[in-house]
Structures are given as C-alpha cells and as structure tokens.
C-alpha cells in the first residue's frame, strides 16, 4: 500500500539533510584545515540566530539585511574564536583544543542567557506551506535545502577554482610543507575560521526561519552535527554531505514510525555501529 505520510517524511528527511549538510560543511572545513573540532559550533549558530532575531525584531531592519549582518557577525566570531582561544593552544595536546572550545560552549550559552534571557524567541514571520499532492512541506525547509545546495556548490567552487582555495586545500593535506612553499598558515587559518563561521551564519539564517531560538538550542542539533561530520570522516566534505542525508532519513523516518526521540536514538546507534564498520568515515581510503 502506498503511504503518503511515509513519503512525506522521506522528503522532509531529504530537506532536513540539506540543513545538516550545511551545518556539517563549516565544521568539516575548519577541522580539515586547522585540525581542531569546534565543539561550540552549534553555539556560534545560536549567536547568529539571536543576531538576526535582534536586528529584525528590535531594530526593524529588513530581513535580508539582518541575515547579511548575522552572517558577518558569526564570521567575525569565528575569527575571534581562532585568535583568542584556538591559537594559544595550537601546539598543545589535541584534546585540550577540543576541550577549550567546550569551555566556549558554556560561555556562549550562558552569555546568551544573560543577554537575551531564557525565553523562546521567534521572528514572527509566517512562512507559507507548500502543498504537493496530499503532502505538505514547509517553505522554509525547501528554502533551506536550496540554499544549502547552493552554499555547498559555492564552497566547492571556491576551494577548487580559486588560488586561495587551493592554498587552503594544500595546507589541509600537508601542514609542514606548505609554509616552505611560501604559504602563511596563520593567514590561511584566519580565512578558514572566517569561512567556517560564515557557514555557521548561513545555517543560522536558515534555522531561524524554522525554529524558535533559545540559549540551549545548540545542544539540540550540536551533537547531530558532530555525528554527521565523524560519520562522513572528519574533514571529508563529500563524506559529510552524504552522511547528512543518511542521518536525516534516520531521524525523519524513525520519527515517523516511532517518536522523534527514537528517531535520534536510532540515528546515534547507527552512528556508533557505523564507526565500527568504517572507523575513519564512510569514504575513508
């Protein structure tokens, strides 16, 4: 029997996959180049969401302007994070680099509580619902999916077609040789942090259209972003892209058959199982 609701949740899963792919992209880029996992990545997204909300609701700026400013703010935040927090620990044990951004996670979460309070905020923008056959899809999700695809494409073009992008890829392949070739790694790291932050900002602008923002929102999609990146192979962008869609299907279809938490439980359990089959990611060589 053909099940419309199942089809609807499969397509919704694909749409969700687009957002996850975008989220994973920035994190993967930063890891691939700087070799640091930003545990606070989802919190950067949260700050971006708040910035957009604040500019749009309080200052009454047009939404596109607010979104542009939000992306710029998070990109700047990525640079600051790198200069103030990552740089001092670059030479130390890798686990310190992981934990220090965990400290930033607590800091940003509490700072957001301090500034914005614990209320759930939303833009108050009504997004139309798209009806197709008997199925309903949120326009915000379709928009997010399309933007994610465009974002992935643009980043890919930048990394493969531009001089700077080539330097970034080169340094991710060999950290020791590239400085000898006349590439300044510090500059590359800063640019990468800015792009990684910018990606978080783009993700924020798409999420703020769909979800209410509150200080703990990072915890609800942070873990899933890490899982997507690890399953695709940390630093492997194509892997992360595919893994995002696999994960989204588990969450969406699992949530359709059971409850939404069980969708997540199945996705995480699948992740743990996959780690044993392909420890270095789906597309490891």
């Amino acid at each position: 029997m053909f099940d419309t609701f199942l089809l609807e949740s499969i397509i919704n899963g694909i749409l969700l996959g687009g957002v996850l792919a975008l989220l994973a992209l920035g994190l993967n880029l930063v890891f691939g180049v700087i070799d640091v996992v930003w545990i606070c990545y989802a919190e950067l997204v949260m700050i971006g969401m708040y910035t957009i909300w604040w500019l749009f609701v309080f200052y009454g700026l047009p939404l596109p302007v607010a979104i542009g400013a939000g992306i710029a703010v998070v990109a700047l935040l990525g640079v600051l994070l790198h200069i103030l927090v990552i740089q001092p620990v670059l030479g130390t044990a890798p686990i310190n680099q992981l934990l220090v951004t965990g400290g930033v996670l607590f800091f940003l979460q509490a700072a957001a509580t301090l500034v914005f309070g614990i209320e759930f905020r939303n833009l108050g923008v009504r997004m139309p619902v798209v009806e197709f056959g008997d199925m309903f899809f949120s326009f915000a999700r379709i928009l997010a999916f399309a933007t994610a695809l465009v974002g992935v494409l643009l980043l890919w073009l930048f990394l493969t077609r531009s001089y700077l992008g080539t330097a970034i890829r080169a340094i991710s392949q060999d950290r020791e040789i590239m400085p000898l070739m006349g590439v300044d790694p510090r500059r590359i790291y800063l640019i990468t942090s800015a792009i990684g932050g910018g990606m978080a900002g783009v993700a924020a602008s798409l999420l703020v259209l769909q979800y209410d923002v509150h200080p703990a929102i990072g915890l609800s999609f942070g873990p899933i972003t890490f899982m997507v990146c690890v399953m695709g192979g940390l630093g492997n962008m194509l892997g992360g892209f595919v893994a995002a869609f696999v994960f989204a299907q588990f969450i969406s279809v699992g949530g359709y058959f059971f409850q939404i938490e069980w969708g997540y439980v199945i996705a995480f359990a699948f992740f743990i199982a996959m780690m044993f089959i392909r420890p270095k990611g789906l597309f490891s060589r």
Partner: protein
Amino acid sequence: MDKRILAVLGIAALAAVPQFGLGNYHLHLLITVLIWGFVYTSWSVMGRFGMVSLGHGAFLGVGGYVVTMLWNSFGLTPWVGIPIAIVLSMTMALLVGYPCFRFRIVGHYFALVTLALGEVVRLTIVGLRDQTGGSLGMTVEGVPGGTSFLALQFGERATFFYLALIVWAAGLWVWRMVDRSMLRYALEASSEDEDAAASVGVNVTRAKLMITMLSAGMTTIGGALYAQYQMYINPETISGIGISLQIVFAVIAGGLFTQLGPTVGAMFTLLLAETLRVTFGHDIHGLDGTIYGLLLVLFIIYMPKGITGSIAAGLVRRRGAPGAAPAAATH
C-alpha cells in the same frame, strides 16, 4: 609509610567533621563534593591515559535511572539495583569499547563516539517517558520516616555524609591501585604508541577495556548515589553533553594526573558555582555560567595541568630535584 598515616589521619579528620555541629547547608556542600569527587575520580581513572570520554553521563544516567526505576516499580532495594546497574553499564562499555579499541578509534573520534553514547542514553530516558517521566525527571519514592538502610535512604544528613565518605575513599583507593598496577604501565605505553606497546607484549585492547569497564562501573555507583541523595533525577542533569563536559572540565581544573586532582576539581567548581550564585543571586540569569565558562577557557590555556598539577610542579621546582616529586603527582 608516612603517606599511609597521613591518609588515615585525613580521612579520620573528615569523619569527625559532622560532630562539629555543621549546619545542613555546609554538610550538603561537603556531601556534594564527595559524591562528585568520586564521579570525577572515576572518570580520571581512564581519562589520565588519554582516553577522553565525553559520554560518562551515559553511565551516570544508567546508575541513577536503573536503580530508581527498580526501586519505584518493583520495590527492589538499591543494594540489588546498584549491582544490576553496574553490570548494565559495564556491558554497555564493553559493547562500545571493544570495537573502539579493536579498530583503534582514538583521540577526537573516541571523544565523539562516547559523546554519541551519552546522547543515546539521554534520549532513551526522554523517549521512555511513560516509565521515566521524560524531561520532567523522576522522584525516588521515599520510605515512611525517611530513613531505611534497605532503601539506602537516610533522613539524617550526617549518615549520608559517612556513606559518601566511604565511597569517595574507596574511589581514591581504586585510583591508587590502578596507579601502582602493571595495567598503568601498559596503558601509558599504549597512550604513547599503540604499535610499540603491542610489540612488547601489551594486549592494548584488553588493557583499555579493563580500565574503561572499571571507570564505567564506578561512575554508575556515583550516579546511583547522586539519585539516592537528591531523591530526584532528570535526564538533563544526569546524562547528556552538559554533565559529561562538566566532568571533564572539573577534572582538568583540579588536575588530571594526581590522586586528589578530581576531588579538588569538584571543590573548585562547586565553590565557584556557589560563590557566583550567592554573589549575583538568581536575578541575573546566566552571569555565573558566563564567568564559569570564561574561567574554563582560561584554565585550559594557562593552566593545563590543573590546580594540583601546578602546585606539584611548583613544589618540584622549589626542591630542585625532579626525583623528589610528591607521590601524588606521579606522572
């Protein structure tokens, strides 16, 4: 020998504390430090060998929830419930740990796999809302009169203090046993270079599994103890990333490589939280957390050895002889 005397004296002094007529508040702080000091010690038992788990909330959650659910639904005493929870936790650690260590999942990957484990347990607790109360949490059913040895409930705070003290001291003892065992050398070698360790006859997978299961079992006891003390548990406060990261940070702040480091970390984080809470009150939401997060970042950047580690290093420098390092700082 004098170290052993010192330890006995220290614990005797602690045991005498409730006799001085401390108020309930201070006794509560002490019990909290002891329980968390034990949990943090349990984490550091494996964490000191470079196996950084971001998922110990999973074991805390199993400890708290399994014991409470067995007691509330079937009236099964925690004295039986805790061993059941320990077996469950250890099985979980085995199931996830074996493939991890077999396939050399280390560093970032290990941390993130354990993080997923913590989330699985948290979401399972939330998902089983008919049995666990979901995000609202769950109350341990009290016995009439408030005190029952069988139910591991003590209306008198001082009694609970002694229980926590015994568990905490046992935790330190386990830490010391591991510190003096061959397992320690095997694991230190493995954390440096797995291939080299394996080539001299270390069974890396087995050594890592043993320490992980030990740590998981201890953490489960900590979770159960916490539930019995607070009489209320909640998936967010007992499992999930928040608490798992808190464990790691407290240990880093206190000192990862010293016996008393995790306990000092528990004291430090609790004092900090209480001071900030008392100073700023609850009127300004998030101020205490902001300062806490800032301090954590500064700690990791400027004091990666933690409080006890830095003191120990300072002592060594003053004596001018590296060999004269206090035994507590052996690493």
